[in-house]
């Protein structure tokens, strides 16, 4: 069956027990702080690099998912969540406490490139400083912001000043002579090709890009704070819809549902799992259709045929989702322990609508192949541009279609199964071109796989006995997970690994709610892909990353 692990997994990912890891790390470990999902080791703040390098090189933990930072009554804490690309069920957390009065901790950036942005974010929102960090400054908030909003003593009502500066050329120092002909070019934050409010500080040498730096934070909507001030049971679920808002709502909701259900030990009925799986895959199709539409827009430059074709297919799948959930974009359909309501009545009509959609899908995918992937101009613009080698992708923590377009065989639906995925027959799509074209191709082929999954779910749901249609588990009215339980759980969102870290403090609200968004890590790879290329290739590379700024900035 397709869900069998590929051969590489058996070779690469030897599983170590927590005790073996502790022995490997030896004196570096100060204490144990196990999380629900993984063993946790407390280390001293000056041994971060050594610890992570040991784990990366000797134990194979090559994927730094996220750095969660938080403040306690008596200390600051950064947690490095490590996984293996070959087997993401093997996890380990490295907990780094920092001094309350002078929170300084060693940077992990020399070991994992992806830690650069994650640590800047921790500095920005919590206030932990990272020694040796190459560029420690605010990332999401304006640089003149006062205070760190997720720290304990932050005063929300204090006045703030945001500047509107002329951006200076970051390469000017390198070209001191007057003959230098580099040019500084702002792309965004209002620009049709940036897929939202992203600002690219670009330096050109002639027509070539010598430096590009994504400047984010123009849509930082305090999502983590919003989740921390909501109760587990009902008040958090509406927010996930608004992270990756390209209709990937159910996929995001699943990320929260999975973390919270594991935290509170809730078992979801099988019937609800099948509905969840079906709905999530519909969302994936809708999200990939828009990725395709806007990518064609970036390449062709206007509201042209491909955009309209793809939006047309998106409308169809959105209609199905609207029938299912009652909403068009912000579904709010999952509940902890199940879904909010059963399939729409009459069920036969819903099933036949879904089948109609699936029946015409191969034909429209054929159309897309005729329209774009086989178009020579399109191929010239995308093949061999925006190269992202697999080891670079891994170092930056890239996941989803971006990693799979670089041949990294990593998909949490198969590697860390949840929902009903492991009962169904489908394949993980990878392409090894490492370029803009393969990333698009991965998305298009994934749409076909999603269609396969939906079809199997429809078959299952059609034959489900009427008296066993249980959409909700018994969930206590108020959820109060035990004090100081911590969990990190991820699902495969439309853009990649979407993870949630929650620390409970015994109340009905999370004490810390950290979102690991795939786009945040994926966007970090843009300079790697764009430096040395031409300006239109930067636009193509950005389009092929398929970033959603709501998720990058949160």
């Amino acid at each position, binding site marked *: 069956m397709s869900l069998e692990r590929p051969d590489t997994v058996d070779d690469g990912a030897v599983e170590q027990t927590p005790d073996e890891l502790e022995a490997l790390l030896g004196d570096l470990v100060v204490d144990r702080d196990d999380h629900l999902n993984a063993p946790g080791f407390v280390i001293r703040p000056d041994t971060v690099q050594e610890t992570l390098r040991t784990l990366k090189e000797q134990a194979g933990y090559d994927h730094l998912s996220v750095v969660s930072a938080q403040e306690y009554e008596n200390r600051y804490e950064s947690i490095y969540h490590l996984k293996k690309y070959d087997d993401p069920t093997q996890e380990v957390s490295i907990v780094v406490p920092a001094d309350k009065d002078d929170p300084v901790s060693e940077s992990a950036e020399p070991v994992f490139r992806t830690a650069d942005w994650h640590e800047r974010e921790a500095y920005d929102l919590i206030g932990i400083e990272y020694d040796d960090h190459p560029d420690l400054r605010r990332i999401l908030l304006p640089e003149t912001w006062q205070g760190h909003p997720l720290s304990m003593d932050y005063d929300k009502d204090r006045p*703030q000043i945001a500047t*509107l500066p002329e951006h200076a050329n970051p390469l000017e120092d390198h070209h001191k002579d007057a003959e230098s002909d580099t040019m500084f070019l702002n792309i965004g934050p209002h620009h049709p090709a940036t897929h939202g409010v992203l600002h690219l500080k670009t330096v050109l040498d002639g027509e070539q890009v010598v430096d590009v730096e994504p400047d984010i934070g123009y849509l930082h909507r305090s999502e983590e704070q919003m989740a921390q001030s909501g109760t587990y049971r009902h008040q958090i679920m509406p*927010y996930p819809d608004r992270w990756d808002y390209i209709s990937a709502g159910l996929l995001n909701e699943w990320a929260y549902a999975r973390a919270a259900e594991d935290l509170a030990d809730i078992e979801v009925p099988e019937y609800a799992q099948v509905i969840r799986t079906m709905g999530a895959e519909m969302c994936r199709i809708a999200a990939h259709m828009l990725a395709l539409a806007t990518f064609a827009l970036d390449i062709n430059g206007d509201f042209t045929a491909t955009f309209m074709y793809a939006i047309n297919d998106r409308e169809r799948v959105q209609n199905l989702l609207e029938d299912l959930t009652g909403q068009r974009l912000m579904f709010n359909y999952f509940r902890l322990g199940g879904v909010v309501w059963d399939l729409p009545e009459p069920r036969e009509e819903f099933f036949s609508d879904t089948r109609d959609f699936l029946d015409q899908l191969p034909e429209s995918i054929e159309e897309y192949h005729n329209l774009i992937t086989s178009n020579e101009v399109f191929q010239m613009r995308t093949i061999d541009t925006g190269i992202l080698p697999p080891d670079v992708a891994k170092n930056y923590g890239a996941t989803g279609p971006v990693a799979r377009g670089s041949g990294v065989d990593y998909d949490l639906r198969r590697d860390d199964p949840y929902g009903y995925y492991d009962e169904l027959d489908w394949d993980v799509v990878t392409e090894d071109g490492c370029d803009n074209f393969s990333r698009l191709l991965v998305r298009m082929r994934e749409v076909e796989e999603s269609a396969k999954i939906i079809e199997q779910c429809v078959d299952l749901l059609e034959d489900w006995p009427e008296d066993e249609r249980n959409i909700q588990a018994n969930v206590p009215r108020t959820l109060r997970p035990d004090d100081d339980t911590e969990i990190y759980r991820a699902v495969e969102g439309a853009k990649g690994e979407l993870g949630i870290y929650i620390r409970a403090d015994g109340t009905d609200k999370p004490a810390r709610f950290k979102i690991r968004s795939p786009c945040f890590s994926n966007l970090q790879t843009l300079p790697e892909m764009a430096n040395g290329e031409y300006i239109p290739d930067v636009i193509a590379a950005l389009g092929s990353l398929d970033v959603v*700024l709501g998720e990058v900035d949160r």
Partner: protein
Amino acid sequence: MSSDQPFITDDSQVVTETRDARMTGQGDRFNSRLREAFGSSPFILTKFDKFLNWCRGSSMFMLQFGIACCSIEMMHTYAVKHDLDRFGSGVPRASPRQADVMIVPGTIVSKFAPRMKRVYDQMPEPKFVVGMGSCTISGGPFQEGYNVIKGAEEVIPIDIHVPGCPPRPEALVYGVVKLQERVANGEASPVTVKPYELEEFSDLERDELVDKLADQIDDDELVMRYNFADSP
């Protein structure tokens, strides 16, 4: 009221020799409804302002401007199913200098507000703004956020609010058509109160915060000051 016709045409029953003469030997294409409306002569009399308002209302150039979730629905509004172009208002322009309507589709946060104001300022007069969605109206679900501006109206004046989270494309179409009606009737809103303006840093009142930032910010740099405690 705004639902009135933009202008009243002449009675179409006027038939004259002149018109008959014009039509002799011509094809049907000259025999249009408009020709009937014009009656005997190809002239209409109206006020210049009224005429220009009608022109404005009938060809609105939208700024291609995406911020957040609402912009997805905005894209759907332009695309196949809803097709805002049917109403003479679906020409998305990538440059603010070519646009006269800005749809603000999403949450405005502190870092973005001055940039949005700059884009708005770059649009030529007369310009109109449609506020799309709850965030643009009030901050919406993120109103309690530490970084969120409580509505675009804190920064730029807004003519029409379209509520929803996000509003369906139909709702946006309705909002835009309502705006067109108002524009055609010369009823666009006056500029509303703008508590936050872009100011030069040196023009700010010298308080503790300004003193603290004085060595970081240039005196003639434009800044926006947010007083979160006083905003609604």
